[in-house]
């Protein structure tokens, strides 16, 4: 009964989201576009951090790299827009595959710093690469209607939520959680850590790349400082932490909330937005470790999958 109700509810929401560009003014579409982008980014970040234990601090590397690859394909090679978008995704996935043997030698927090260094390396390459006009930036000569980008973002969001949901339902999801909770024990139980992490990392790289490409089709101008802005790391972290780490609903709530915060509150005080996110991250980690999902679940009295936030002395942490 409840299951049927839920499906009806989801279909109704979906129909509403599909209908919105036809009915409401463009302001709504642009807000929802950002909300979808943030939600899917947060969802993917959460797949790595909340379910696999990869604290990825290099999201901006993939976003910028994919956007640049797409821009090269569109502007210099004259390929069609959607082909270029896929091309950006494919090249980024390839990059993720190539560097993963390097990165997954590291464990735990080294891994997070490794992803950050990787992103900085990509960034410092594009800052000086004359082919893409180095720091001066390049325009993406594509005419895509905002409405089609809206639908693209909607599709990305649905796909990313579905992927995370399917992964968690499957055997791989169990393996991922085992790796997150205790890498050594998981290895002893026969989980191939490298393959599990690689799987999670490449899928995340692909979706992050598509997100980046779609976003910069909307902006249509690329510069290293913008394309590789640290905001791309901060936003998914803020959205996930606010919504609730290690839940599927958390990033959705967080993504829409950060988009709303960005659009309606922080746009009036430029420069303060990152500050507010920083304060929010600190306060939520300290005061409400489970994020908004924990609050909601407490109010509605349903159980959440447990995540080790304040758990004392984990076996794989240092003494």
């Amino acid at each position: 009964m409840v299951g049927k109700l839920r499906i009806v509810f989801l279909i109704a929401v979906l129909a509403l989201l599909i209908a919105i560009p036809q009915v409401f003014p463009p302001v709504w579409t642009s807000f929802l576009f950002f909300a979808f982008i943030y939600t899917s980014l947060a969802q993917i970040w959460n797949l790595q951090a909340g379910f696999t234990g990869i604290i990825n601090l290099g999201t901006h590397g993939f976003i910028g790299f994919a956007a640049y690859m797409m821009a090269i394909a569109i502007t210099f090679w004259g390929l069609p827009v959607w082909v270029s978008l896929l091309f950006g995704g494919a090249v980024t996935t390839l990059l993720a595959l190539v560097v993963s043997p390097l990165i997954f030698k590291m464990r735990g927090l080294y891994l997070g710093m490794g992803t950050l260094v990787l992103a900085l390396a990509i960034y410092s390459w594009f800052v000086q690469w004359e082919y893409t006009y180095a720091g001066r930036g390049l325009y993406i000569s594509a005419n895509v209607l905002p409405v089609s980008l809206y639908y693209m973002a909607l599709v990305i969001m649905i796909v990313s939520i579905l992927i995370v949901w399917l992964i968690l339902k499957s055997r791989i999801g169990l393996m991922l959680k085992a790796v997150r909770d205790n890498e050594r024990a998981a290895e002893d139980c026969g989980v191939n850590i490298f393959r599990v992490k690689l799987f999670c990392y490449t899928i995340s790289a692909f979706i992050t790349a598509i997100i980046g490409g779609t976003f910069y089709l909307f902006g249509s101008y690329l510069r290293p400082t913008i394309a590789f802005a640290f905001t791309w790391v901060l936003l998914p972290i803020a959205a996930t932490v606010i919504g609730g780490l290690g839940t599927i609903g958390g990033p959705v709530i967080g993504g829409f909330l950060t988009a709303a915060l960005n659009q309606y509150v922080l746009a009036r005080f430029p420069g303060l937005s990152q500050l507010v996110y920083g304060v929010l991250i600190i306060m939520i980690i300290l005061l409400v470790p489970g994020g908004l999902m924990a609050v909601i679940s407490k109010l509605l009295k349903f159980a959440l999958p447990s995540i080790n936030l304040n758990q004392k002395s984990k076996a794989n942490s240092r003494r």
Partner: protein
Amino acid sequence: MINLILMGICLGGIYAVMGLGFSLIFAGIRGTMNIAHGALAILACYFCLLFAERGFDPLLSILFVIPIMFILGYAIQGGLVNRLVYGDPNVFVLLLIGVSVVIENLIIVIWTANPKTLTMFAPYTIQGIKIGDITLPLNYIINFFISVATIVVYYLFLKKTYWGIAIRATSESYVYAQLLGVNPKKTYAYTYGLGAIAAGIAGILMGLTFTFVPSTSLDWLTIAFGVVVLGGLGSLRGVIAGGLIMGLTVVLSAYYLGVQYQLFLCYVVILIVLALRPEGIFGYRV
């Protein structure tokens, strides 16, 4: 060539101090990856700027900035991170990202994001010093001596004083340290405070040599991380070696490949070392 190598060594001294704080915090506080390190270093630069604008010599104002950095570090660890210190280390990272973002953006709000430098407040540091037939900028020499002094003071502090020994004991095992009458949480706060001082000193020295903007903090964080990765976490010898390798890489690559490649090469070196020898060249557990 000798000139370049000497410059690399001088730069390596600052990098070593940058890595020293990072390494201390990592080894001392249960494997905390101090993401806020770069932000603390850059904040120290702006504090120094505050004093320099009021007519103090930047080198002298290091002395004023040291207690400020210690109090700040003590407050961050004692007030925020200590609440979660026995939990999952991944959560510290998120918390410290929050701290670093807050610091960086407070700087933007107060001082704007325009490039700043401390060099103009100490014009005498730009002149060259002739030793035999090689010329070095004076600020590189000053940097080198301050870095060496800092490292020696830290070494003596960790070996001789009560809190130094407490820090080392707690990094071995906080349970046993507690049994022996050391308050681990207070020790963690001291450790973070000391790490923040090292970050501050290194930051001011960098600020005396280069221009900086608030987002430079990420570069400095990576330098600290790189030094520690090259040398091995939690070893003083490793930090010095890592700093020197890093400094030489930066200076030599800037000379032979061009300035635009120097950061790229730096990051690639870090990634390669991370992949080949994750525990660092001199790596061993504290």
